[in-house]
């Protein structure tokens, strides 16, 4: 243990504790900007500087450990002056158009400048403007980048894709796509983790709200919206709602208030995914062939993109089942259109996703199977949904709870847990066990739950042992792939989610600087699951009806046509 004094408070902390954390333990929150615990502790912004008694030079609190007997001042005249100057310097190179910034009100730089009372910057404004393809789902605005390097570090350390890098040296140092590539030709999975860890508005998703408003304004267009499982666990954060008020029912109500004609649930098509993917898995397990590699889930487009760019030789082991978003789109413009008597081409299909990669997924060549344009016409992130609600000046806490529309609003507890890492695995296990044994298993498969990046489990289902692995975060995915390639591990079925914690930690989710919220959101999904009357995908009555009336059975020709990729 180390004894020290911060701002006159004596404290005792473990050896190796950073000054930042030591201060926090006695309630002193040292202002910081670039710091991201465990990921980016590089002391670049020099906002967290503190003065150490007896030393001339200030030291950064974020990446320097405490020393026995040190006496620190976080607000000495020197610390105060340096902190202010450094924020002013950052502002001199920052496009401070806060009113038109997506992060206005949720920006650490804005808050810090305001807290410090910086009303004028004494330095010449020098903002870097680099061109960027505004059609790409991920937008980088160089004018707002403060070179904190968080995006570089997240992509290197957590996602292991190395899309961002420091570019140029000297005064022209900036962040850009690595290896002199442009973003379109990079291997970016569009996981969006760089966006959710950006302290400013330098990184964001492409804003697709204008297209939503156009669709809503057109009386000829029938708008059909689906909401992904993980969105319901986070949408309230974007609106400042307490968790108790951010219910599924109010979310549905808000969407209806905005004017969407049909409000459906991606949970429905998550159940459908289980029917297709689960059946595919059972076929694979019983086809008598030795499979060198496991079957991999395919519902996460960030992961699918990663697999195809990093391990193309193994991409054949991905399930051919489309993601719930795309299954929904295909069913909405065929089965539902027929049933409701709406010409498919009049349907404008919108999804609300915790994800940026879904924006690209909806435009991939296999995703036009309904014959009426793209199966999903537009993808919004949870953040865009939040902005939509705000733009419509809706006060969600005053709304009455409403149910999803029928028939594509019916879902089970198995569908809702898709939003957390291990959820697809658990939902698949529930149904696979039923198919193989004729009996429903106990629905809770605790060993596949939880935030660890890699979880192995073996299950006995009927006669068979099923070995599985559940992974989230692409660095973990890469480590797993290397182990599988080396032959040091063997699994039958592997679930991968690109974002740490799964979709609840998705790159399209609301941002709270410095906080990882997947761990808070996931339990909400498990609670919804626990309280659902039906918890097995195969028991969803609307799914049963869909097969009976339209698809026949899982993996039927029509199911293949609509619900599977061509390989």
């Amino acid at each position, binding site marked *: 243990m180390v004894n020290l004094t911060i701002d006159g408070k004596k404290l005792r902390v473990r050896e190796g504790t950073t000054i930042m954390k030591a201060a926090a333990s006695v309630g002193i929150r040292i202002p910081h900007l670039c710091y991201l615990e465990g990921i980016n*502790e590089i002391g670049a912004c020099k906002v967290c500087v503190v003065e150490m008694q007896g*030393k001339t030079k200030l030291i950064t609190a974020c*990446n320097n450990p405490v020393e026995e007997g040190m006496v620190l001042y976080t607000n000495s005249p020197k610390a105060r002056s340096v902190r202010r100057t450094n924020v002013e310097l950052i502002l001199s190179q920052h496009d401070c158009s806060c009113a038109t910034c997506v992060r206005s009100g949720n920006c650490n730089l804005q808050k810090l400048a305001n807290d410090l009372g910086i009303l004028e910057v004494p330095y010449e404004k020098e903002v870097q403007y680099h061109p960027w393809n505004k059609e790409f789902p991920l937008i980088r605005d160089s004018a707002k980048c403060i070179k904190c390097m968080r995006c570089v570090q997240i992509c290197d350390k957590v996602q292991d894709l190395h899309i961002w890098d420091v570019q140029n*040296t000297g005064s*022209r140092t900036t962040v850009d796509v690595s290896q*002199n590539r442009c973003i379109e030709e990079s291997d970016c999975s569009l996981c969006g983790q760089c966006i959710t860890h950006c302290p400013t508005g330098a990184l964001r998703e492409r804003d697709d709200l204008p297209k939503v408003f156009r669709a809503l304004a057109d009386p000829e267009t029938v708008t059909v919206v689906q909401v992904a499982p993980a969105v319901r666990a986070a949408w309230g954060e974007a609106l400042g709602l307490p968790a108790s008020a951010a219910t599924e029912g109010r979310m549905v109500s808000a969407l209806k208030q905005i004017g969407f004609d049909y409000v459906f649930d991606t949970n429905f098509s998550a159940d459908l995914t289980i029917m297709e993917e689960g059946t595919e898995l059972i076929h694979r397990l019983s086809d008598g062939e030795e499979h060198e590699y496991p079957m991999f889930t395919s519902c996460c487009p960030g992961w699918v993109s990663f697999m195809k760019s990093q391990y193309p030789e193994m991409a054949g082991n991905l399930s051919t089942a489309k993601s719930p978003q795309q299954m929904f789109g295909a069913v909405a413009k065929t089965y539902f259109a027929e049933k409701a008597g709406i010409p498919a081409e009049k349907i404008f299909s919108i999804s609300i996703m915790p994800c940026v990669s879904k924006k690209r997924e909806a435009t991939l060549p296999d995703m036009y199977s309904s014959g009426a344009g793209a199966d999903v016409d537009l993808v919004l992130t949870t953040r865009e949904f939040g902005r939509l609600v705000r733009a419509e000046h809706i006060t969600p806490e005053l709304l009455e709870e409403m149910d999803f529309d029928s028939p594509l609003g019916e879902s089970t507890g198995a569908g809702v847990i898709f939003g957390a890492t291990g959820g697809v695995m658990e939902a698949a296990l529930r149904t696979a066990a039923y198919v193989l044994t004729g009996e429903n298993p106990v629905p809770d498969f605790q060993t596949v739950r939880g935030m660890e990046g890699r979880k192995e489990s073996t299950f006995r289902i009927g006669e068979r042992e099923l070995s599985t692995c559940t992974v989230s975060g692409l660095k973990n995915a890469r480590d797993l792939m290397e182990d599988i390639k080396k032959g040091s591990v063997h699994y039958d079925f592997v679930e991968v989610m690109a974002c740490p914690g799964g979709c609840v930690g998705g790159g399209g989710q609301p941002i709270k600087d410095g906080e990882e919220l997947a761990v808070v959101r996931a339990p909400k999904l498990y609670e919804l699951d626990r309280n659902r009357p039906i918890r097995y995908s195969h028991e969803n009555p609307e799914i049963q009806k869909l097969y009976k009336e339209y698809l026949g059975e899982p993996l039927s020709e029509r199911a293949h046509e609509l619900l599977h990729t061509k390989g």
Partner: protein
Amino acid sequence: MSRLKISTPNAAQLTVERLYKDLERHIIASPPGLCPVDLQLSFLKLCHAQTCGKCVPCRVGLLQLQHLMEDVLEGRATEETIALIEETANNITDSADCAIGYEAAHMVLAGLEGFKEDYLHHIKTGKCSYTITQPVPCVALCPAGVDIPGYIALVGEERYADAVTLIRKDNPFPTACALICEHPCEARCRRNMIDSSVNIRGLKRMAVDNARANTVPVPKKAAATGKKVAIVGGGPGGLSAAYYLELMGHHAVVFEEKSKLGGMLRYGIPNYRFPRERLDEDIEAILSTGVEVHTNVTIGNEEDDMSLSDLRKEYDAVYVAIGAHTDKKIGIEGEDAKGVISAVEMLRSIGDDNPPDFTGKTVVVVGGGNVAMDCTRSAIRLGAEKVGIAYRRRQEDMTALPEEIEGAIAEGAELYSLKAPHKIEADENGQVTAIWVEPQIIGAIDAWGRARPVRAEVELKRIPCDIVVVAIGQGIESRHFEEAGIPIKRGVLQAMSESSIENLPGMFAGGDCVTGPATVIRAIAAGKVAAANIDEYLGYHHVIPCDVEIPQVNYADRQPCGRVNMTEREAGERKHDFCAIEECMTKQEAAQEAGRCLRCDHYGYGNLKGGRAAIW
């Protein structure tokens, strides 16, 4: 009214003078990987500030060049911009009155030629093609990439064995490098920006003197793979490869032509610089990994003990690290006289404990490199009455380290600079009696920045002597290797940068036999590279880790402080024996010197990227 005044510099002038010195040191410590166009623009700004403002090309031209270069850096330029830069700079070169203008423009032209690719890259992509890959200057410049800030911090805490363990992660010859490394790591040490570079080699010496390499256990080996690798040459490169291959679980078998291991460390470097028992400490530790050694074995063709093709058949991979051990001849009349010996021959006989007796003799050493200094100082120790060094350029042009030259002079060597060997004179018995030299004057500077000597219009000079030692470089015994299919170019083996040989799978080569005579640390680095790539070739991906915990930084303010230099035994005493001449730092000195390290692994770019490669 006085007519003349004695001028004394005022405070401003004195300050500027001091800033010039500061700037010089900043330039010395310039980190590798910076944008060259950006740097050039900064240089140009400085040059422009020097202009008096009288002449147009300098006053205006240098400014317009800056604008054009800014266009390049800001991505506003086209190829026409480059053409305009070139034309303008040419015209400034041709018309500026004084060197302030034409030399500034000349620098711009040199840059346009030297890094045109980067200019074009800026134009095409709006970005620089350069990046900082290893931001810690000392580590970036160490060929083996040794974790220098790490071991300096360990020495500072007197954790000497840990320091040796950490060095060994990248370099299994900590003792050799502690005593005789040419320390390229110190060249751009960021401490230069404050005062002068950290004495890195001296601190490593502190580690190995207080924790002898043979007393610090080597790390645990990986599980045996059953693969066997033959290594031709038991010098620093071959033994480094052998060490890492053993740690990776492969079996390394070293074939050495001479009777003992160590290569040039034993047969090239005299004992007074690197005592044999210290070399044996490194070798003992390396062999403790299980390396199998066969000495007195020549690998060549069928007539020799074994041929290269035998090795290829018998082993899973072969690493050729034979070094550069053959003599180079001057090519002058009388070179075959009795009493003319090559440096290689002389140092080898000393290495084999069979030194020549120079008692009472007059010796002239021809050459200006470190080997020439080794021969000179050895000759003094072998009893020579007088030893001279004949060199065709000036003392400052010598490639030997300045401290080696100064050491030789202090021990009584005579320096015949600007004297090119002309012929060797012998008596009727064929015994050397003198060397005739051609006096030179120093002349024009060549493209590499070296002043070339040219024949002076004076008479030849006769230097009477009994022994001539030729130390003008070494060559490589390449014939047998060429016969075995290894491509040879300009006398050296042709290996790729990953040390494999084109069209010969499983065959690797590195060190002096590929680069030509170089330094021990480059041979060690080549051995490390070879080990990694042989491991990959054999289908593995072993990593070499190190679990030593690096001490945390201290928060001391960085006050300027002089560098602790190494001390030597006094010249009059040391010149009579072959015992080590350099003395180690004291603990007090080492603590102060270690404290001068700026910990670039923690401060600066190092804590973002590339600061520490914990494994390789």
